[in-house]
């Protein structure tokens, strides 16, 4: 993180904050924006935006049915939705891991539709997958080394950084990731993504399987990274928590945007609560 240009963090976080505030001040009635053009009003200066993505795995079956999404510099975006809504697919499509059938993805104005993942990494995009997110036959250390594959010189420094976040990893650096417990794997996955200092970070359920204490850590870390100027898109089933920290949120259902709005708006929208958040963890 230390190589972020000196002025960048301030401006970035400031603009993000401004955006968040502006959104928060918007009248309650616009809490859930479902109208596409209205949604895209803010997309003019987005770092990353997708337009009408249609994508899927099997021939003839579309999982994403024209979803839009944009994220501005320094923003933290949350994506929530029921299981199988296509959240992971959306992230994968943006990251070049699922074939996009129509629609475009722009990164800082550049068209990156269906671009290879490794090329995106060199453009500063990082990604933590939901499943299969470690290299089982590599040791923890080597996993992290792979995280820093394109910037091998930085490995030592970044390793110290993530080791401080997850001390368990440092102790076990020589253990093969395949023998780790579920939560330990999740830590490795998160740490691996943090090795590169991306400017845009895509997180797919980073807190799943972690102990409450570490969940806290992950959310705080996400915020902190974001503060440092990194644009974050986060998919979470720990939805309430996610909406709490994000600037804006999207609710995805059946491959389409069902609701969008600021995190707070969504978290308090009764429809969203009933359909997606549940009442178990009442704030």
């Amino acid at each position, binding site marked *: 993180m230390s190589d972020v240009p000196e002025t960048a963090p301030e401006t970035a976080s400031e603009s993000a904050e401004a955006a968040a505030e502006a959104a928060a001040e918007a009248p309650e009635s616009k809490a859930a924006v479902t109208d596409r053009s209205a949604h895209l009003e803010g997309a003019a200066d987005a770092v990353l935006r997708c337009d009408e993505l249609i994508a899927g795995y099997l021939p003839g079956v579309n999982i994403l049915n024209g979803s839009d999404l944009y994220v501005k510099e320094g923003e933290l975006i949350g994506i929530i939705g029921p299981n199988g809504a296509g959240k992971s697919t959306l992230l994968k499509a943006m990251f070049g891991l699922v074939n996009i059938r129509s629609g475009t993805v722009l990164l800082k104005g550049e068209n990156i539709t269906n671009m290879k993942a490794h090329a995106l990494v060199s453009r500063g995009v990082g990604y933590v997958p939901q499943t299969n997110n470690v290299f089982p036959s590599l040791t923890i250390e*080597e996993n992290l080394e792979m995280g820093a594959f394109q910037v091998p010189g930085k490995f030592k420094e970044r390793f110290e950084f993530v080791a401080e976040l997850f001390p368990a990893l440092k102790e076990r650096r020589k253990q093969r990731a395949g023998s780790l417990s579920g939560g330990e794997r999740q830590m490795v996955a998160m740490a691996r993504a943090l090795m590169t200092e991306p400017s845009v970070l895509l997180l797919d359920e980073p807190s799943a399987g972690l102990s409450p204490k570490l969940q806290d850590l992950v959310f705080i870390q996400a915020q902190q990274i974001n503060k440092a100027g990194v644009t974050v898109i986060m998919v979470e089933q720990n939805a309430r928590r996610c909406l709490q920290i994000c600037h804006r949120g999207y609710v995805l259902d059946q491959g389409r945007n069902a609701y969008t709005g600021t995190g707070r708006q969504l978290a308090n929208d009764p429809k969203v609560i009933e359909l997606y958040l549940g009442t178990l963890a009442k704030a």
Partner: protein
Amino acid sequence: MRRAVIAFTAFLGGLIFLLAAPAQAGPAGCQGLKGTLKLQGQPVNGVKIAVTTEGGQPVKEVTTNAQGTWDVPTDKGKFKVTLDVGSLPKNAEVRGGNNVRTPTVFEGNCSTVLFALQAKGVAGQPAGGEESEQSGFWDQAAQLTFEGFNLGLIIALAALGLSLIYGTTGLTNFAHGELVTIGAIFAYMFNVGFGIHLIPAAVLAVLLAGLFGYGQDRLFWGQLRRRGTGNIAMMIISIGFALVLRYVMLIFFGGQNEAYAQYTAQPGMQIGPISAAPKNFVAMGIELVVLIVVGIALLRTRTGKAARAVADNPALAASSGINVDRVIRIIWTLGAAIAGLAGVMLGLSQNLKFTMGQDILLLIFAGVTLGGLGTAFGALVGSLVVGLFIQVSTLWVPPELKSVGALAVLIIVLLVRPQGILGRRERIG
């Protein structure tokens, strides 16, 4: 009945033959028994030899002449030839002690009868026999151990190539044997075709084999991966590909055995109990160095680790910024080059044939599996075990069954260590 008919025909054939006056028969008119007696290269004169029929009716008794020879013309049939031991020179005896022979004489041919003579009490001392037998066993064991390493290292080289490609792409490449062959044939092309000395020719061949690997991935396997072809389909495709390669080589190289222009039938040197040709040592040295360097490179270098990462999870590797296609291409290049080198080494120690790689493919697979799938040093260890067992097992089993010994060991080792010698168990849950 049938046999009788055959015998009769043979008899008729014989008659006809006799009538037809052999155009180019051997020593004309020779039909009977003959022999030469020699002791330490010198003819032995005056030894009495008695020939009787099988039933014991005496035919003739002769004495050897100054050249040590004797002969007795006979009818065809089985005879008993007895050497009169009493008539031998005092210092001589018949080797093995048996002075009776029972040869058969065939129509129109002489049968030679041999009584090997030796100086009394010189060779075959009863006490020493046991001992030399013993030391012979250990000499043979030492030689076979050496041969085991010799063969094992070649297999290891080929296995390393296979293991690299399997480990990185998950492709069970049945065309790998052909990659071995093709390396050998490239070297042959440079060596015999263009008249380049084998050493530079081998270097060129390995480079060309590497290029071939690169091209294969670039133009073929890579394209298939891009189409999302599954591993099973790819495996069958590799069988098809092996057929194509093998028979292209048959067309261009031919079905016969060939040798390189240099180093064929290089005489061996005796080193302790082992006799080996100098080329064996050089080859083994090269093999060992390549194996260790590549093994370490896989463990230590960035590309090596990236290769293992790609093997584990290509999508995640791409997400980490690894150019998966590039890594795979490097591995293909390297794997094919190493396979090519294995081919050159095999051709050097044996000969070249268009099926040479196919013939050792099973051993290659055995080596890779035995060591633990997808680990470089596993391939080395596994192949050495295979090589050693093939050779050393011949101390006890007939050589025609030597592969049986090695394969049986393979099965037994896998039963004790199902994950291979160097493999690791996977965690459940």
